[in-house]
């Protein structure tokens, strides 16, 4: 029987894991262990529901409800002096719980502290744009939509940013294969030659590591030279050691294999 492979997550998986192996955890410390962070957390807690909060690797992580994202970030920016939004993206948990985890990485230059505000949203659930607070979110949210298909409400120019506008699928989802899906294989064929040329051309080979040993047009065969484009499924023809260019090579008058000596002894 063929081994079952989950379709919801097609990313590379380790092929062997010790069955007694338990993954260790990166240490989390309580927010109370840092004075600045506990003040910030108290200010957020005063107005909004905080689902979880801890410090991990010197940065505070705060989980909030997705509906509060704009207001919490506004509070962090205006009252808590987190004046820069370094990064914003999503994490795909669709296979496990059908949700995206959105994180907002923020920096306070006066306090020299970084916090990460996080929330969960369902697959089709929109999230409010924070572009009005940080212009940097303009491009990050476009990238998040492009890569994950997260719907962002209230964005001034919601358009794909890295992929072409007419691309189908969202590449960073776990369901999207590394070499691209069916639509990706036909994208350039359709675009350049039209759909009717599909039968003639065939899908694009997107596995960059694929080597066809019978392909004498695209792959050189060092030491087993055959004429360009020769069909060799039934074995290679004996090819004399000679230049294969039509009309010879510039500056070289003649070259005969029989008259030349092949050096086998390096120290000759």
């Amino acid at each position, binding site marked *: 029987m063929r081994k079952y492979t989950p379709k919801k997550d097609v990313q590379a*998986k380790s092929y062997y894991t010790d069955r007694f192996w338990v993954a260790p955890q990166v*240490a989390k410390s309580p927010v109370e262990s840092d004075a600045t962070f506990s003040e910030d957390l108290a200010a957020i807690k005063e107005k909004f529901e905080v689902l979880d909060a801890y410090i991990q690797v010197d940065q505070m992580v705060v989980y909030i409800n997705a509906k509060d994202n704009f207001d919490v970030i506004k509070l962090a920016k205006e009252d808590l002096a987190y004046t820069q939004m370094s990064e914003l993206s999503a994490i795909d948990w669709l296979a496990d719980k059908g949700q995206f985890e959105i994180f907002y*990485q923020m920096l306070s230059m006066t306090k020299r502290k970084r916090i990460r505000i996080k929330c969960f949203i369902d697959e089709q659930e929109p999230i409010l744009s924070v572009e009005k607070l940080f212009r940097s979110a303009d491009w990050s949210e476009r990238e998040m939509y492009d890569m994950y298909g997260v719907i962002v409400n209230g964005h001034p120019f919601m358009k794909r940013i890295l992929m072409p506008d007419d691309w189908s699928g969202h590449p960073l989802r776990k369901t999207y294969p590394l070499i691209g899906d069916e639509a990706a294989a036909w994208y350039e064929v359709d675009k*350049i030659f039209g759909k009717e040329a599909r039968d003639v051309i065939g899908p694009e080979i997107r596995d960059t590591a694929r080597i066809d040993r019978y392909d004498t047009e695209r792959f050189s065969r060092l030491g087993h030279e055959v004429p360009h484009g020769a069909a060799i499924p039934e074995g290679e023809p004996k090819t004399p050691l000679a230049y294969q260019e039509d009309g010879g090579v510039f500056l070289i008058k003649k070259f005969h294999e029989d008259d030349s000596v092949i050096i086998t002894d390096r120290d000759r």
Partner: protein
Amino acid sequence: MQDTNRLRPFFENIAFDRDDNEVILNFGPQHPSAHGQLRLMLHLQQEQIVKAHPDVGYLHRGMEKMAENMIYNEFLPTTDRMDYIASSSNNYGFALAVEKLLDLEVPRRAKVIRMMLLETNRLMSHLFWLATTALDIGAMTVFLYAFREREYLMDLIEDYCGARLTHAAIRIGGVPLDLQDTFIADLKKFLEKLPANIKDYEDLLDTNRIWLMRMENVGVISTDMALSWGCTGPMLRASGVEWDIRKEEPYELYDEVDFDIPVSDKGDNYARYKVYMEEMRQSARILDQLIPMYYETTPELMAHAPKYISGSKLDIMTQNYSLMQHFVLVTQGMRPPVGEVYVATESPKGELGFYINSQGGPYPYKLKLRAPSFWHTGILTDLLPGHYIPDVVSIIGTTNIVFGEVDR
């Protein structure tokens, strides 16, 4: 409406049937001053830009996707291809993020060598910036001079790791090699000449009438705008914010060396130019201090953490368990603990951040690359309107964007 589905000429530059005088100019992606693959759609009233849409993605290779399908050590050389003008700084950002995740302590000699590489890369990047920006503006001599010095540094890096552009010279847990015998002597020779070289560039440019006309009061970024757009590095410092991660959140041995952070409150192209020039001097100053520090260290180069890092060559070749561990780490990869980390370092372009979410497997569950150039390109949307077409070239020049990093 034209059918855009085929490669027939599609005249997007020309908007027909319009009542106003607006012209839409398509700038790039194959434009010599587009620094790679930037496409700008510029709405023009006469020569003045009224609206700008940067279009990126022409160099998108899906590095974050690749990272999810690679073991950690496998991904490290891929980071070279982000900011390929200063590849070691990307290697370092990634290595540091993984080290924070693993909670590793790197030996002191490795730290010194890493800092030497980082500062050499910063100098290479700034020299390259100066050369290309000057060339864009028409100062051919500066281009040749700056490339001469950069060539020397590339030879130096080549002596260390064998590569000139994509170095992969830093490993998770340390550095793979000690410095070559001639490295320090060559570096000293370079550092002796550098101040005079920088003075040469400044003599050529500082009071040059053309340079001033193209740079002064062009592309002014206010402090609020820089903060809001997530600008970092020289872009932010030229807009009046004194923020350098090396100083504020010191990593490696940056808290043990003396250096100043150049700041300007002007925010225009000229301010950024001055900040870059001063940063070169400061990098040279750091390198000067690193040379005696190097001699005070003991020769360990890699952290000792058998669960995550392969042993030394000697151990692997002589001890059975070390060989087994090495085999497992190479074929399966290290498995960091479950958790997440965001680590920012000061790359030559700005804040280079790596967000890693590990679920305890040999592949990162999610890896987000925070490349400074991404936002430095985005800011063109707000920065270009009001400027004229020739300013576009000098503004793109001083934002110092690299498209390996923007598109990732």
